[in-house]
Each structure stands twice: as C-alpha cells, then as structure tokens.
C-alpha cells in the first residue's frame, strides 16, 4: 500500500477525509450516526432551526449524537432566500457552537430547483467575511462567480454538480474544471452527487473534496453507500494524484509487445 500524506486543508486546518457529509433525510439519529461513522467524514453539515417549544423535553439533540468534540460541525443556511437571513442564521450558529466560525453559506433563489441565487450569495459572503466567518460557499458552476467569491475571501468554493437532492451527478465537468484550474482555495463539489462514480469523477477532475447528503441518506442501504463513498473519494483522489494515461481517440495502443508473435516471419 502506498501511504500518502495528502491532507485536505481548509482555513488553516487539516483533515484526512475529503468526504464531507450532511445529516439530513435520515430515518433517525442512529442511522445518521452509523452512516457518518462509516463514511469517515470529519466535517459534517447541520441545519439551524427553531427548537420545538414544549414538546419532548428529553428528546436527544443532534449534537448529542454528533458531538462537536469529535466532528467539525458545519452549520448551513438551508432554507435562506435572502443574504440577511443567511447572515442572521450563521450568527446564531456561531453562538450555538461556541464561537466556531467555519460555516457553509447557501442562499437559494428558487424553491423548486433550490438553485443558488449567486447575487445574494456574493452579498452575504461579503458581510460574513467582514464578521470573521470562515465561509465555505455553495454556488453555481459559474467560473466568474467562483472567482468573485474567492476574491471576497471565502475559504472554499463549493460548486454544484447538479441540483440539490437530484442525484444527477456532474452535469458540467468542463465548468468544474475551469473553476478548479483557477481557484487558489479548495474546491469541493456540493450538491447533486448520486452514486459512488459521481464522487470519483469529481475527485478525478481535481476537486479537493466532495460534500453529499442525499446520495447516502437516500440510498437503500445508507451505511453501505457511505462506505462506498469513502472508497470512491479515495479512489478518485489517488487516480488524480497518479496522473491518468492520456486519452487517444481513434488510435489504439496495444499493451502487449508486437515482437515475437507466433507464426509470423
């Protein structure tokens, strides 16, 4: 086995795992915990919502199951359609997580497609960076917006592969590649991963990591899919670092020698 010291570095902190996972859509906390554990993910996203007043005071809290001491919790702004909603949510999240400032920013533009409103996202990113948040930002696969978000000071750019929860995989690898080639901060595919090969392809393109939720939680066997995804991200990363063979259209290249063939003079 070739052991590689190939750590993912985000906002000055290093991580072994390049697979980041969400915690939504699971049947229960036990299934959430099992899938997260098997995935090997160290960074885990959570949503910020109103607590249920007066109901089940002894109900376990997600943070009991995924303690902040063990995982890097990444609060998101899911459900925010304006920059101010997103900023307000993350201020609360930072207070909830004792000053932890690594956050995921998403500002959505449409309820059906959940496509990001990149203009509002840029606005929110500026405000958040000014308030010393370390912003990992969900965005479209527009290379100009990606560059602008990096220029604002976001610590990671997270372009979608396809629509949130769609499982359609990477629809535009060309744009993704442009973003990767021009970025000076980590690029992580976020949204649209459906199965293991999607994650591998993302890593082979040169992504620094992959963030997924539905691909695991929506699988028939989430823990098994989490295991597959762990391997998929590792395989894709190693293939990328190994440097793939060139593609040769219309020209075959035999792997076996041409000399010494039986029956030839």
């Amino acid at each position: 086995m070739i052991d590689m010291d190939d750590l993912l570095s985000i906002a000055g902190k290093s991580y072994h795992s390049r697979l980041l996972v969400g915690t939504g859509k699971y049947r229960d906390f036990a299934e959430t915990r099992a899938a997260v554990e098997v995935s090997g993910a160290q960074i885990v996203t959570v949503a910020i919502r109103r607590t249920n007043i007066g109901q089940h005071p002894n109900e376990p809290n997600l943070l009991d199951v995924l303690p902040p001491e063990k995982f890097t919790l990444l609060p998101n702004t899911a459900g925010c359609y304006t920059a101010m909603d997103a900023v307000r949510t993350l201020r609360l999240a930072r207070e909830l997580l004792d000053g932890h400032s690594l956050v995921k920013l998403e500002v959505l533009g449409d309820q059906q497609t959940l496509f990001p409103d990149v203009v509002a996202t840029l606005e929110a990113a500026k405000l958040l960076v000014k308030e010393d948040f370390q912003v990992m930002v969900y965005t479209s696969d527009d290379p100009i917006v990606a560059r602008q978000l990096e220029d604002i000071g976001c610590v990671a750019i997270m372009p979608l592969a396809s629509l949130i929860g769609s499982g359609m995989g990477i629809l535009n690898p060309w744009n993704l590649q442009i973003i990767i080639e021009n970025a000076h901060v980590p690029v992580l595919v976020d949204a649209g991963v459906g199965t293991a090969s999607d994650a591998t392809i993302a890593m082979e393109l040169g992504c620094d990591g992959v963030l997924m939720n539905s691909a695991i939680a929506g699988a028939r066997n989430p823990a098994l899919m989490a295991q597959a995804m762990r391997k998929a991200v590792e395989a894709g990363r190693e293939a990328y670092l190994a440097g793939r063979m060139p593609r040769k259209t219309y020209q075959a290249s035999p792997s076996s020698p041409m000399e010494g063939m039986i029956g030839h003079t």
Partner: protein
Amino acid sequence: MQLVINGQSQCFDNVNSVLQLLESLSLQDKRIAVECNGEIIPRSTFPSHLLTDGDQLEIIVAVGGG
C-alpha cells in the same frame, strides 16, 4: 408578561431573565442559541438579560441538514 417565542405568542408568569424563560420551557440544559428582538443573547448573559413585555425571541438548535 407576553412574549413571542419562535413566532408564537405566549404568556409567562414569574419570568424576568432569559435563563428563567429557558427554565420554564425546560431548555436551560439544552444546546440552544437565543436571539431577542433580532439580537443574539450570549449564553453567559442568560441570567442577567432581562425580558420586557412584547419581546420577540428565537430559540434555535442544530438539526439534520445537508
């Protein structure tokens, strides 16, 4: 006093501070964050931050999400 908690108006007796409010809702030991009239109330000030009639509070937690 009348307080709006997470969008719902409720009446509270013998509640003066944020901590007392949380205790009346059995939330004092939970991992939550509190916003009052749009301002974040730091955890350390829960015992001292006094509430006024008509205050609007958001009490939030982390839940599963992508």
